[in-house]
């Protein structure tokens, strides 16, 4: 009985930490894909770049891990700005802008790390530093640190998205014509949105790298699908229609998605199979509306291409 409770607690606490950390990434995904209606694939590069930057700054430059984490966020913001620039100023489609960035960033990440990975095990991370003050166990510490970053991001974004600039940004994804019609620069909104989103994604990358004690150039592969899965779960459960519920849906969706993954691993699933499982999960979620339409005998429009 005690064993089972331990396992349950462990699953819950792991999911809690991961839900908070990856919730930041899901918010980044939500901001571009849903709020801005800008399908930004940069995250496949900016997520490992967050980890690479934080690790390189901690190991090679011997920065304080908190400063290194801040550095990772700034690098992520820059990546987002470049994606936004390619789209708004060079007029390349959002999808292709993100693909170009994601491919290009792979090489940049190898350069940042001077190799394909950096182990962090002998170096203090934000978790170690927080542990010196808080003195919690490993899992409690992970939740506390991720929770602190999540809370900070939650408060900042809730405030920002209700300001005049934030409002114009939220309207951009819904009705660009109207936003320009009331005198707001939609290009600027895309730039700001991509910058914030990729900053959040790089933050997740740096936290994950520091928690797991290493960073790897391939840790971004497929991250977009996990973000999508979390966003779908969050949207289904919270039906977000305002800023606060939207942010909570991102954390809640990540928590549940991560719990499913943790349970799957516990049940003996190979970590290598997880991406297929995630893809199939997303595919099922995406085709539910189609199946509902077909069973009701409704007309189904041709598939969208973009």
């Amino acid at each position, binding site marked *: 009985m005690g064993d089972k409770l331990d396992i349950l607690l462990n699953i819950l606490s792991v999911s809690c930490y991961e839900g908070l950390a990856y919730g930041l990434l899901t918010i980044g995904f939500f901001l571009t894909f849903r709020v801005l209606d800008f399908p930004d694939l940069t995250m496949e590069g900016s997520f490992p770049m967050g980890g690479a930057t934080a690790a390189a700054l901690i190991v090679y430059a011997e920065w304080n891990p908190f400063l290194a984490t801040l550095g990772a966020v700034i690098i992520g913001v820059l990546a987002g700005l470049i994606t936004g620039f390619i789209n708004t100023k060079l007029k390349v489609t959002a999808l292709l802008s993100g693909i170009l960035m994601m491919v290009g960033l792979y090489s940049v990440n190898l350069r940042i790390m001077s190799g394909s990975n950096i182990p962090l095990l002998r170096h203090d991370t934000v978790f170690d530093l927080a542990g010196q003050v808080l003195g919690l166990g490993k899992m409690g510490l992970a939740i506390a640190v991720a929770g602190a970053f999540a809370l900070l991001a939650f408060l900042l974004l809730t405030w920002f998205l209700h300001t*005049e600039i934030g*409002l114009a940004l939220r309207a951009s994804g819904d009705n660009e014509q*109207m936003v*320009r019609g*009331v*005198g*707001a620069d939609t290009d600027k909104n895309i730039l700001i949105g991509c910058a914030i989103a990729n900053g959040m994604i790089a933050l997740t990358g740096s936290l994950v790298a520091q928690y797991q004690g290493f960073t790897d150039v391939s840790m971004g592969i497929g991250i977009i699908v996990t973000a999508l899965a979390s966003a779908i779960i969050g949207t289904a459960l919270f039906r977000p229609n305002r800023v606060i519920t939207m942010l909570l849906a991102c954390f809640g969706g990540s928590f549940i998605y991560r719990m499913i993954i943790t349970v799957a691993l516990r049940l003996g699933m190979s970590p290598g199979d997880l991406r297929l499982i995630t893809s199939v999960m997303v595919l099922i979620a995406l085709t539910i509306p189609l199946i509902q339409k077909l069973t009701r005998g409704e007309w189904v429009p041709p598939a969208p291409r973009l």
Partner: protein
Amino acid sequence: MSNVNSQPVLKLDGVRKTFSPGTVDEVVAIDGVNQEVKAGDFVTIIGSNGAGKSTLLNLIAGMFPPEKGGKIHINGQDVTNLKEYKHAAYTGRVWQDPSVGTAKILTIEENLSLAFSRGKRRKLIHAINRNRRSLFKEALKPLGLGLEDRLTCPVGTLSGGQRQALSLVMATISQPALLLLDEHIAALDPTTAKTVMKLTSEIVNREKITTLMVTHDMDIALEVGNRLIMMHKGKVILDLNRKAKSALTISDLISAFEKASGDKFADDKVLLKAD
């Protein structure tokens, strides 16, 4: 003061616009328009299909620039090559499609706040505060639709007519130099269209905003405003002041059109209505 009044709010000089130039699809949408619109004018614009009415409004709103040589001045400022969002400092717009003028995911007060910042620098301050809220309520009350009690409702829950009425308030709340109405009642059912048209006249008269209104409804074009412009193939072919148009009927207008253009009047919506 008289100096300010004598300056036209809108001045178009040699404005031309060709779509797909140099291809088989080349269309001359605006073919050399020179016009001045005085402060306080309410101009109705009519014309057959493809006359260039909407293109003219789009040019004035800065959706695209006119061809080289053409100039657009608003309140004496050269706005010819300003980006669309910078034009918006001078112009408020209402589109034909009620969904274009408002953001459905935002609340009524958030939409109004977006419009309230027209022509001002958007800042990192809360978009809604108590002062603004009471200002928005005051602006919505005259509509008589009860929207002032639903400030925090998402706009997506409003009907087309309500959204169009809200668009009107949004287009005028920051007192732009020019109000551009692009067939803004054409997509509404007849009763709602009548209500929104009445609200339009009330707002324009109360705020004394210089207005350009494209319409298919000849009754309204004759009844509303103090000036009527008829367009054909990208040119202004008829320009009537209040006195001249008050004496006209729809059939007068159609024969005036056929005389001025040497063409048959072709507008499916108008002919259906005029029977």
